[in-house]
């Protein structure tokens, strides 16, 4: 076997291994991630009221595998930006995001988090959080109803299902 052939063989072997092991394994890993999304306990503005209502008995977001807000950053993988981000909060929000372990997902909840919303002309409000965080799902509304938030979470789960489980293959 020449060295060129060996390279081709190893490359093929990598493909085969990825197909045979990584895809099912990735599916299993993603399945695990979907049903255990833990949001960070960080409220940024008034949408936190509807976020609280989403974990109330009537809407009960826990049945979709998303537990109510959690205190420790090191165990969280979802950050729901609940409304307006002011210039004072923005560095703190980024700091919180940076401290979370990979993989991590971002939901922008409410018009203020998407574009600045009602506060588009305020001197102290960021025009949307895209500038500081990579957003996965946008949930519109001012404030969004809990049903809308739950739909956003389900969309995120759909998205995670199609993501690669590992970044470096």
């Amino acid at each position, binding site marked *: 076997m020449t060295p060129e052939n060996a390279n081709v063989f190893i490359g093929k072997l990598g493909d085969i291994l990825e197909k045979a092991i990584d895809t099912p394994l990735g599916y299993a890993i993603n399945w695990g991630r979907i049903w255990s999304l833990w949001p960070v306990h960080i409220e940024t503005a*008034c949408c936190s009221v509807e976020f609280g209502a989403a974990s109330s008995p009537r809407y009960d977001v826990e049945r979709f595998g998303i537990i109510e807000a959690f205190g420790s950053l090191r165990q969280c993988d979802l950050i729901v930006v609940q409304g307006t981000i002011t210039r004072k909060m923005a560095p703190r929000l980024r700091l919180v995001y940076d401290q979370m372990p990979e993989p991590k997902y971002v939901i922008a909840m409410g018009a203020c988090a998407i574009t600045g919303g009602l*506060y588009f002309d305020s001197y102290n409000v960021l025009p949307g959080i895209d500038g500081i965080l990579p957003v996965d799902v946008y949930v519109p509304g001012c404030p969004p109803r809990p049903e809308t938030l739950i739909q956003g979470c389900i969309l995120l789960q759909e998205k995670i299902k199609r993501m690669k489980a590992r970044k470096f293959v």
Partner: protein
Amino acid sequence: MTNEFLPPGLALQKADERIMTLNVGPQHPGSGHMRIIVQIDGDYIVACDPDPGYVHRGEEKMAEYRNYITNIPHLERPVIHDSCNVLYPYVLGVEDLLGIEVPERAKYVRVICSELNRCIYTMYWLAIYGIFLGHSTMFMWPAGDRELLIDLMEKISGARVTHAHFVPGGVRNDLPPNFEEVCLRQVNYFEKRIREYAAVFYDNPILISRTQDTGVLSREDAIRLGVTGSVLRASGVDYDLRKKEPYDVYEELDVHSNVMKEGDSYARSKIPWLDMLESCNIIKQALEKMPKSGSVRVKLKPNPKGKGLNSVYKRVESGRGSLGCHIVSDGKVEPYRLKLSVGSFRNLIALPYLLKGEKLGNMPSVYWSLNYWPVEADR
């Protein structure tokens, strides 16, 4: 920039063997949207410095660029779950500036909406108070029961929390058909339901041992610090604006204000609950006395203007206490200056005072018993 103008977190702290500085918030289960900088000696708090402003959105500046009607939606955002009450002083003030007389039925509708919103706000507050004390049942029960009243408000205004229902000149829409019966039924059930909270929460020995005699605010200090609402009434000062300075139709209703003498966290947490029972009572009275038909809104001219350089200060009793609105008008379509004097901001001054000498573990219960909603305080 000198050290004098630096925010507390960035100013240099003196390193000390005994005193440790802790930042509680803005990402912390026991803080909400604010930061509390506490210095602790072992388990005891020696100094505390609240650092609000994480939700400062410049509402007062924005109000100067919008006319009297388009100011309504953004002015209710500081407290979206108490949105009727937070608009109330603004609407009263604009009516005073423009010289509008509101129809009788609209006044009753306002009172009903305002009391329903007070309950919705207080239930959310109580749910968070339950979480702060690690009492999960007390999150689930109020968070579920408040949906009953949210349903009622949704019937009236069409939105879950942000109603924008009060407008200068009355309310936006009349009540839906059959509202009185549905409202009476829901409120009766709600009242029966919240009476059960006493057994699970207020008579709970664990809660009592955690909150009684913590964070005691004496009557003299409550007056000196100028706190308001449930904090003030828990310290034995009988001051409720619905009785002392009745607005709209509160004069004709029998309002009882709840007062407790203790001034500790327990009293401060019990007063809002008693207020909810009183609110149910007021709603029932208002439903009975309300004129069965009639106009609910005076049509305004487009772009109404205030008369000359004039100022007005109106206040109402909101879920968090007295809520004032100071409007200065200079005869244009926009207010010249609008200032919201909110209960949360006034109660914040008591926090450093109450936490001094308290154990760190008591911080969440003392902090949240101040009936503080950070978004409102920051405006």
